[in-house]
């Protein structure tokens, strides 16, 4: 019974982070039609930036409660800087070019950011546990959980909800949908498509950086996580359907729970399980659980 509780709660925690991370990736893919391989790097950047700021604040002697806003600020800085820079400088040059070229471009950015973070923040793991332990714990059966995990899930749901509201409920969202549906007509109607692309990419990057910042207190921030992260995040959006926000939620739940099961029962098979599920889903529904099948192009 205790194992079941652990699996469910851990699964939810994993899913919350994966959800925030993956709606970013799926939004970027949906609008720009580019799979951002550097997504994991932006996540890591968010984690580093947040830990850096928290450590600074604690060192200056401020109350530990200041670390919470600092986490958010760190994530936001990383997302708001990395997003526009990557989109304006590099991605905009390869819109409409072959998919292989776009993949290579984001892969180059991944390589560059990977080293850059090692140079900026060092290769030693950075641990900031204050925000994690500050809120105390609660018990669920025989297992205790820190309240921070609840905060994590809440923030993730709120941010995800906010993004869904932006896309579905605002004028900006309607413009985005029109750009996704038909780029040329949108240009003809006077929509600034270039800016739409930049804002969408930045929103996506923001999601990645925020999820990195939120998870930072629960783990040691180490270099080299970028690829693991983007691989699981891709599994999430492939299972849910590329470009679908609901799909990202569903995929995150599935991958989160599968990961929790794997870690509890057979830790060696964590990645195998995630990929097995993904391959099974793709075999049954190539467009993902929530995706719509695309008509074949002739």
């Amino acid at each position: 019974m205790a194992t079941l509780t652990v699996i469910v709660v851990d699964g939810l925690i994993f899913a919350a982070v994966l959800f925030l991370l993956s709606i970013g990736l799926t939004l970027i893919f949906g609008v720009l039609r580019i799979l951002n391989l550097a997504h994991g790097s932006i996540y890591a950047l968010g984690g580093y930036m947040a830990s850096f700021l928290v450590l600074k604040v604690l060192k200056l002697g401020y109350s530990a409660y200041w670390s919470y806003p600092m986490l958010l600020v760190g994530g936001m800085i990383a997302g708001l800087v990395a997003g526009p820079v990557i989109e304006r400088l590099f991605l905009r040059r390869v819109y409409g070019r072959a998919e292989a070229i776009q993949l290579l471009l984001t892969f180059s950015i991944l390589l560059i950011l990977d080293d850059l973070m090692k140079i900026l923040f060092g290769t030693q793991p950075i641990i900031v546990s204050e925000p994690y332990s500050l809120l105390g714990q609660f018990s669920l059966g025989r297992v205790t959980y820190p309240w921070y995990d609840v905060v994590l899930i809440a923030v993730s749901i709120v941010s995800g909800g906010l993004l869904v509201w932006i896309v579905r409920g605002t004028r900006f969202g309607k413009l985005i949908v029109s750009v996704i549906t038909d780029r040329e007509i949108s240009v003809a109607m006077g929509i600034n498509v270039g800016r739409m692309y930049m804002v969408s990419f930045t929103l996506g990057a923001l999601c990645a950086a925020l999820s990195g910042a939120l998870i930072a207190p629960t783990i040691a921030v180490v270099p080299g996580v970028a690829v693991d992260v983007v691989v699981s995040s891709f599994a999430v959006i492939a299972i849910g359907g590329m470009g679908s926000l609901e799909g990202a939620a569903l995929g995150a739940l599935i991958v989160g729970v599968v990961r929790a099961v794997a870690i509890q029962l057979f830790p060696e098979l964590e990645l195998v399980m995630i990929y097995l599920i993904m391959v099974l889903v793709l075999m049954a529904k190539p467009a993902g659980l929530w995706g719509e099948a695309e008509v074949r192009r002739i």
Partner: protein
Amino acid sequence: MEVMRRWLAPVIASALFLAAPLAVPSWAVFVLTLALAKFMAVLAVALFLRGGLISFGHALFYGIGAYAVGFSIKWWGITDAVLLAPLGTLLGAGVAALVGLFMARYRGVFFAMLNLGVSMILYSALLKFYWVTSGTDGIGVRSPAFLGIVPPRELFQVIYYYFTLLLTGIVICAIYRFLASPVGYFLKAIGDNEVRIEYQGESVRRVMYLTYILSGALAGLGGVLAAFAVGHIVPEYAFWAQSGEFVFVAVLGGYGSVPGSLVGSIAFEFIRTYASKYMPEAWQTTLGVIMLFIILFLPGGLWTIYEAATGRGRRRPEGVSRG
């Protein structure tokens, strides 16, 4: 005249490769051997690049080839390179035949990411099942025998270089044969228009599947050769960064051209020898910056410079066709 034009460059290149050990110091022979070994894995990636597909996971087969050597030595004491080279090739092809069953269905980002994912699975298995694989400590590889004959120590490096060179020659001939076959031509067409391939009576999945098996065999052989050359096997053989290097060299060499990949592999290995000495912490950044530069400014890879210089270049608007 036409015959001369066609054979001049290959003959000169072969002569240079054959004469190389006489002219260069022994560390350069080692780098050259390693470059030829990796060239095979680069070719595997380059094949798919011709069809506009990118695999970020061919280190999977490279790792399989390398560990085939490691386990053969550890478990059965087999060190014969003439025996292990085909074994690694077959193992690579076998695993590719298995993975290819579902990989042949996917294109674009799915192909790239599924390959990456599968190779990460092998990498984490190599790390986690350390009681079998020795984990990050890796497995030491003794100098190989050739058909039961163990060459004297001081001659080993040169003999192994010629062994690798011989296999490289065979592989290049085989690849040109493959690219001139119907499947080879259809592979290039995958990036242009899949539906028309079907109209011509060829199954796209068959083309993908056959190419995948061939690429697995190539990368497996590369892994075997690299394992003997380096003398030590670590899980990094199957790591994504290794796959990334293969992709990098294939792009550097001109999006899937065979001579380009060869030149690219050798240039890459030499550059790395120096770079790892002077700026080890910025190595990946260097790769990334060069790749960005090629993507944005040299759409046909470095090979375009050569083609432009010799007047052979047909102006290609895009190295990889729209997929």
